[in-house]
């Protein structure tokens, strides 16, 4: 992966959801920019594979299995980063799950799971590293909201968009509370991205047509989200905090999600 070698050298990054999709691309990019990376994922083998990819190309990485909705496991993840690399300077919370259904179609258990992973998981990960960052004089936390949720609702998606809207406000609250400790907290709001998560609910042809509905004419590549994350992690974003940055090919500038854009997703339940 091309990056800006050296921009993050000497930094330690923790990436949740680092085993696939956007998280994987971020882990690879942080490493390419010089950071040591703790690749964390609920799928431990996927995390290990990404860590191997990094070490095989000369970078520093360690993998760990973590369920981000479990406070004890998240604390252990932070402890692993400290033990392996001595600090945490960057946290990327890319772990997340997709869900479909209106309120009447979403049972409370399904709702709780989405909130537990997407929203509470982000809170727990931030909570686990803020003390470490504060002791070092600062750090950068990058959360993952969504173009839907941060900016717009979308049909048949109540738990997901609510969790992502919550992540956007959580990000701002963390930014206000911890600015004085030198910690910047920002959110990415990705548009539709060509990831396994989207691939699990759409055919390749549907994904292509979904991309063509974006003003920019295609889906995002995970490495384009990673480039924005690397910017937010770096000193180039020294005065950026509490921002929710849309990386969505113009999707939300247009009209947000329309029924036509989303028809293929909304039908999956």
């Amino acid at each position, binding site marked *: 992966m091309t990056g800006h070698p050296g921009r993050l050298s000497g930094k330690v990054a923790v990436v949740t959801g680092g085993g696939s999709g956007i998280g994987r691309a971020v882990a690879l990019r942080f490493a390419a920019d010089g950071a040591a990376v703790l690749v964390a994922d609920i799928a431990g083998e996927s995390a290990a594979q990404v860590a191997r990819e990094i070490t095989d190309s000369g970078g520093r990485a360690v993998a760990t299995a973590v369920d981000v909705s479990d406070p004890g496991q998240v604390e252990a993840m932070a402890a692993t980063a400290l033990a392996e690399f001595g600090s945490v300077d960057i946290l990327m919370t890319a772990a997340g799950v997709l869900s479909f259904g209106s309120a009447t179609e979403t049972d409370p258990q399904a709702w709780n799971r989405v909130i537990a992973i997407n929203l509470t998981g982000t809170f727990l990960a931030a909570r686990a590293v803020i003390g470490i960052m504060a002791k070092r004089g600062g750090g950068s936390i990058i959360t993952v909201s969504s173009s839907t949720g941060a900016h717009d609702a979308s049909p048949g998606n109540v738990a997901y968009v609510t969790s992502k809207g919550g992540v956007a406000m959580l990000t701002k609250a963390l*930014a206000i509370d911890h600015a004085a400790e030198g910690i910047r907290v920002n959110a990415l709001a990705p548009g539709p991205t060509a990831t396994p998560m989207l691939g699990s609910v759409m055919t390749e042809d549907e994904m292509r047509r979904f991309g063509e509905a974006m003003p920019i004419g295609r889906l995002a590549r995970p490495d*384009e989200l990673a480039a924005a994350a690397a910017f937010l992690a770096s000193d180039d*974003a020294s*005065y950026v*905090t509490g921002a929710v940055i*849309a990386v969505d090919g*113009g999707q939300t*500038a247009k009209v947000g999600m329309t029924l036509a854009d989303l028809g293929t997703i909304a039908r999956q339940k």
Partner: protein
Amino acid sequence: MNRFEGKTVLVVGGAQGMGLASAKRFAAEGANLALFDIEPDTVEASAAGLRAGGHQVESMSGDVCVAADVESAVAATVARFGGIDVLVHAAAIVELKPILEFEEKSWRRIVDVNLTGVFLTTRAVGRVMAQRRNGAIVVFASTNAFFAEESNAPYSATKGGLVMFVRNAAMDLARHGIRINAIDPGIIDTRLSAALIHDPVAGPDYLKRIPAGRYGTPDDIAKVVLFLASDDAAYMTGEDVIVDGGLTLGATLGIDDLGLEGPGD
């Protein structure tokens, strides 16, 4: 990093402040620079400073609200460097006064410079970029696009207008391979904000509202401008990025913060 090696960057309002800070960073990363500003002496001095560092710099003066001035600046840039890869539009003016006392002439001038000026530069440069189906435009909006201040309605109205201009322009420009995004600076230490920042009372008082604990520097903004102009932002268009040290996360502004006298005083 050398993200702009051999690229041509036109900075409108490039004589000083955030425009000049951006120009310096583009130059340091290998770009050819064209600086356009209404102040001929200032822009020439800034250009001379960059040339002394070994950079290729064209310097031009004119008024962003005069289409002929903008067209000729764009033509001169293309003549010198062969094209334009990046447009940064930083030029803007402000006048603080309650709306009941605001002169119509001042209102029109602010709308002309801040809003119409961006339309004119985007149109002129966009036509050049469309020929190569490639380009990135960064427009300076402001946190004033979303958050009101007393005595600043005309400026805020133009900045809010710019955010929506950028969103709409993104739709029209995407098919030509051109991205356009806005940056929303908070309170940055430039000539425009100097009266507040360096006021012995208002300066430190207002600072309490900024979670980051400091005013922004032009270079804080320049770094984000370069990101938006670079391939790292390849999937970003029609968007705006707030760069304010957290100012607008929870803050509201009162007239006392600006060091102005209220209408009842």
